[in-house]
């Protein structure tokens, strides 16, 4: 099955990429965008979706600094 894992910086961790995007948007005329966080998307085919949490904990995310969300 095709799975998607969203990985994003943990709440409270400084995200300079998010800050940079947040600063850039008004410069392009887009006002009112706040709380930008930049993460990454991992797409994969898995035989057993039950493995996904362990995959995330061990490799796809670093739980110390990142949250992950498994999207079916």
């Amino acid at each position, binding site marked *: 099955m095709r799975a998607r894992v969203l990985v994003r910086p943990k709440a409270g*961790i*400084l995200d*300079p*990429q998010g800050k940079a995007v947040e600063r850039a948007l008004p410069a392009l005329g887009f006002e009112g965008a706040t709380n930008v966080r930049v993460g990454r998307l991992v797409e994969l085919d898995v035989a057993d979706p039950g493995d996904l949490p362990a995959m995330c904990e061990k490799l*796809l995310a*670093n739980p*110390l*600094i990142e949250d992950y969300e498994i999207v079916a």
Partner: protein
Amino acid sequence: MKTGIVRFPGSCDEVDALEAASRVGEAVLLWHADRDLQGVDAVVVPGGFSYGDYLRPGAIARFSPVMEAVAAFAAEGGLVLGICNGFQVLCEAGLLPGALLPNTGLRFVCRQVECVVVNERTPFTRGCGAAERLSVPIKHTTGRYHAPEVVLEGMEAHGQIVLRYAPGRNPNGSERDIAGVCSEQGNVLGLMPHPEHAVDVLRGSDDGLRLFASMREHVDAARAVA
């Protein structure tokens, strides 16, 4: 002393570390796919971009066969020094607390920095004076040290903060100006500055040699006791 320098695909500073370690003893390269540490007295996990730094710096390298052996070596009290990417690998592997995040400036920075020796009683800093300043270069994009507040407090209490950037010189936004930390037992050190690039005044500084000389002293002293 015999030092083993790990070589991953994508390592860049392994030959530099080999040359630096050779100044205080014998040094060999350890291939990432081998579990045999060749009887070394100390291991250096060097700088570079192991596995292209893909996913997260250090995330893939920590699962290589050689790192299994390095973890076992560290558990037995062996000296392990992680420099830059090596520091990232050791954090990912759980051999050191915390994690390295992208610099607040988001850019790669290559710069000579001043570091203060905060704990001169580790096997890696025993040859340094208290609060001694070392001139050593940094060169990284992902060097902002982070650990949860409660962990940082514990590390301070246990003397695990070994090096800090000199006041006002923090190049990457590291919490508490942290440049290098050690394990609770003190035998694993990770640092973002590159001591192997500060071993010759002709090339800018030889302050980094202190770390390699300290390791040698430690190994020699341990041998004398045995």
